[in-house]
Every structure is written in C-alpha cells, then in structure tokens.
C-alpha cells in the first residue's frame, strides 16, 4: 500500500437524503442487471397469469363486464407484478442482512426515514418495470383500454401504491427477522391479500363465504381503481366506460390507509434494529 498524502477537501457541504436514495436505487437496479434470477421469475408469473387466465376464462368474458377477459385480468396481473416488486425488494434487503452488508446502511449517519425511503424508491422502480412489461404483453394480446391515457395513469398509480404496500409489509418483517427465512410469511400475506378479493372474478360471480371477505378487503377497491380504465363501472352497472371519480376514490382511500398502517409497522421494525 502506498501512503499518498494528496487529500481531497471534503468540504462542508453535505449531500442530502435525495442523493442517498438515488444511490440505493442505482445499486438495486445494478443488482437486478447483474443477477436477474432474483427478479425475472417474479416477472414471469404475472405475464403468465394474464395469458392463461384470459385464455382459460375467455368464455366468461361477459361476466367480466365488457366481454373481454383480458381487460379484466390484465390490471390484476399488473397489481400482482407490482406486489412482487415490493416483495423482491424486501427479500433483497433480507439478503443484505444475511451478508452483513446492511451494517453499512446502519453505520451511515442518515435518518432512518431515508433508509426506508431508499428501499421504497427501489420498489417503485421495480414496479414500473413489471407494470410496463405486463401492459405491453396485454396490449399485444389484444387488451381493450376504453379509458385511454387516464385509464393507464390510474393503472400505474394503483400499481405503484401496491408496490409500496407490499414493500412495507415485506420490510416490516425483514427488519424484525433479518433473514430470508421470512420469505414464506411475506408470500402468504401478499397472496391472501390479493386473491381474497375481486382478483379473479367479480363479486356477482362469487359464492359461499368469498363475497363477504372480498367486500371488506381493501384490495377489492384498489382493483377497482386499477381496472377503472379497462372495465365499465364495476359496482354500478350499467354505467358507461371512462374513468370516473366514483370508481377511483375508494381505491385511493384503501391505498392511503393501508400504506399508513404498514408504514407504522415497518418503522417500528426499524426502530428495533439499532439505537
């Protein structure tokens, strides 16, 4: 080792949280590029979902409000993909714990909110990727988007919201357990939340105990928000197409409320990490 004495003046200007968050996202994306195996499988599932379910239940198109099963399932697949984006972000954090790399973040003199913000920002970017890919597949597969650009905007909005929800859930568990063993629990939570809703069929088609559960599940409203531009008004037929505020606000409230609750969950988990 040479002991060169030239010194760079560090200056008194400190960079803020934005630079740290940018750097964390950059690292996360690099990780995906260099080791795609941890991300790509979770991209395959939603793509598969939209293809197979639309193909299998095409006969029931009319039940889904507009005769196009793809329009019913594509937003759902996108929501699924966004939740996986959040989940994989949690798992990549778990791997950082297991390798000891997370200590670097803990030793940095940054606020804990910045640390969480970096993870959430990375989840959002992942969700953008999955949403765009699945949407493209759906477009190629012939999906109808009567709601136009606004419909796509609400779709992205709901996807990003779900990505944050899933990431907060995953991170809340990962901060507490600090290992990848918590993976199955993350999965169970996410799958139950997504599927015990109008994910697969509208409430009118459900039987037994399911309609009751689906009605109180906030995910049902989030799916309404996601499908606003794809499927006619789902609760008040025969209203026409187009994205209406009435279709949107329940989902926004659901997202806001769930994010607030899970944010508390995640932050409490962080507090236990270190002083």
């Amino acid at each position, binding site marked *: *080792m*040479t*002991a*060169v*004495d*030239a*010194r*760079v*003046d*560090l*200056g008194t*200007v*400190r*960079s803020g949280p934005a*630079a*740290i968050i940018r*750097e964390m996202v950059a*690292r996360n994306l*690099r*990780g995906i590029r*260099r*080791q795609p195996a941890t991300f790509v499988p979770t991209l395959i599932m939603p793509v598969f979902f939209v293809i197979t379910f639309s193909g299998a239940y095409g006969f029931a198109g009319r039940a889904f409000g507009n005769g196009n099963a793809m329009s019913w399932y594509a937003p759902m697949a996108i929501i699924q993909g966004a939740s996986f984006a959040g989940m994989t972000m949690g798992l990549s954090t778990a791997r*950082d714990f297991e*390798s*000891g*790399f*997370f*200590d*670097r*973040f*803990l*030793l*940095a*003199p*940054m*606020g804990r909110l910045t640390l969480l913000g970096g993870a959430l920002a990375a989840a959002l970017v992942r969700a953008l990727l999955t949403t765009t890919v699945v949407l493209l597949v759906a477009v190629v597969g012939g999906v109808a988007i009567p709601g136009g650009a606004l419909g796509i905007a609400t779709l992205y909005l709901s996807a990003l919201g779900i990505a944050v929800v899933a990431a907060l859930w995953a991170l809340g568990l990962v901060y507490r357990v600090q290992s990848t063993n918590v993976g199955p629990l993350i999965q169970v939570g996410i799958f139950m939340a997504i599927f015990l809703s109008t994910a697969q069929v509208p409430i009118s088609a459900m039987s037994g105990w399911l309609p009751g559960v689906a009605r109180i599940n906030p995910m049902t409203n989030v799916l309404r928000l996601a499908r606003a531009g794809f499927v006619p008004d789902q609760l008040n037929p025969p209203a026409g197409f187009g994205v209406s505020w009435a279709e949107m606000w329940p989902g926004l409230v659901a997202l806001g409320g769930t994010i607030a609750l899970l944010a508390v969950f995640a932050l409490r988990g962080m507090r236990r990490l*270190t*002083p």
Partner: protein
Amino acid sequence: MGPIIEAQGLERRFGDLVAVDGVDLAVQAGEVFGFLGPNGAGKSTTVRMLTTLLKPTAGTARIAGYDVVRQAGDVRRCIGVALQDAAIDPLMTGSELVHLQAVLHGIPTRVADQRGKELLDRVGLTGAADRRVGTYSGGMRRRLDLALSLVHEPEVLFLDEPTTGLDPMSRLALWEEVRYLNRERGTTVLLTTQYLEEADQLAGRIAIIDHGRIVKKGEPRALKEEVGSPTLMIEVEGDPGPALERLARFGEERPCEPGMLAIGLEGGAQQLTAVVRELDEAGVAVRHMELNAPTLDDVFAEATGRRLEGADEPAPAP
C-alpha cells in the same frame, strides 16, 4: 479533554448468555488501543455496542462525547468501522462500493468520485477498482474495507480483527497503514485481535478480555514486566508429572500444551544449569527445552489460567 472513547459498565446479554459483562474503557484521542482475547470473548460484541450497531443492555458509552444510544447519528459521523466479516456486496465493483459509502456518509457526488479514486489508490486497489468485489482475494477485501472505513475521514477508527485470515505480507501492509493513520492523521484506533503479535506491535495500550470481562489493562511492556519471570517450557519423555514435581522449587507452574510442562523460572536463565541437573538426577530424558521472555500470552495465562489459542502463528493465507 475527556477520553475520546469512554465506556462504563458496558453489558450485553442475549437471553441467559452474558456476552459482555461490565466493560470499562477510557481511550484517549490519538491512541492505538488493542482489545486482545480469544474467540467468543466478547470483543466483537463490545465493538458493535461502541459503534451503535447494538444496544447495550446495561452501562453507557460515549464516543467523542456523544452517547452511543441517544446521539447515535453524531457518533456515526465521527467513526469509521471495518468489521470482521468485511461487509461487501460481491456484485458491486470496488469503485461503486466506495462511491456508495461516500454518498451514505453525506459526501456530495462529485467529490465522492474523487475521494473514491484517492482512497483506492491509497490501498493499492486502483487496478482492481472496476472489477467486481466478488473476485477479490481476502487481502484485497480487507484493504477495500479499510478504505471504505476512511471515506469520511473519521476521528476514530474501529477495526474488528483486521488481519484474521490474511497472509503475512498483507498483514504487515495493514499494520503499516494503521501506524501511518495514527501518526500522520492522529486518528484514534481501537482494534480487536486474537493475535498477540498484533497487539504487541500496534497497540500503545491493551485490554485483555476473556468471557466478556476485562482481565488486564495497560501498556504491553508494563504488563509483561508484571509477569516477571521468563517461561521455561520442557518436553520430556513420558509423563511430565514427576518432572514437574521435581522442579516445583524453581517456580510456579504455568499453563501449556498437554504433554509438556512449563514453569515461570524465577531465577532467570542462571537457573538453567540447576534445572538440567535436577532433571538428570531424576532420570528424566529431555526432548526439548526453551526459555522465553514473558509474552502477552503469559500475561493472558496468568490472568485466566489458559493460553491464548493460535497465539503466535499467523493464520494461513486464504
């Protein structure tokens, strides 16, 4: 000015296990302080508490006047840490890692680039800077870890077993770097180690820790002088027991490897001929005999009744 590293009654329990049992420390600015002890003694746990990574279950600690629990953020600004398992991401390159570390510590991006280059140059990794860290050897990773810990020019540097697993060349190079930092920059260094030679060579003062407690504290030279008599180690044919009894009058028994015997030879080297004569009269055949000035191993042995394992041999290269 008070000590730059201060701890009182620092304790850490994990359920029923007491890993660190009431540690007191006072390290002055500009010192190189060594924490010496066997594996599992509580060195790493203590360091984790001092570096805000672990909350003490009892006791207090202050770094540069900041409380490690209540003013953790300020503490982190002042310290650099290189932990035992170099926390690296094998997918990142050296430059990316230094850049990340710099940004994490609040250094603006452009400055971070320059600083990164400078540090990598300092530790001799410029050539490997654009290779993934997963391809680095153990020695290179340690050097990188050291560079990373210095990115924000901390006043206090914590090194947890910095040369464990390194080849002798890398070890010497690291010692040189630590001395340079301490001499030219006045960086306070607290290092933990299981190697006597390392503590002896680098540290101005040491604390010997065993089973979570500090058993001896002070300057290495002074501690060795306290032990006083040199150690006479003898390997005999057959059972060392009878030979030990014969030599009882020459000094106290000291711990050693099984099958050998060791005593503190109180009269020093002058007594050697008497010892040999005694053994000869007893009909004991001597295979090997060595007389060593007191070492930190003896200091440890006197305090704990055991020898420090893996004492003077450098660990094999990875």
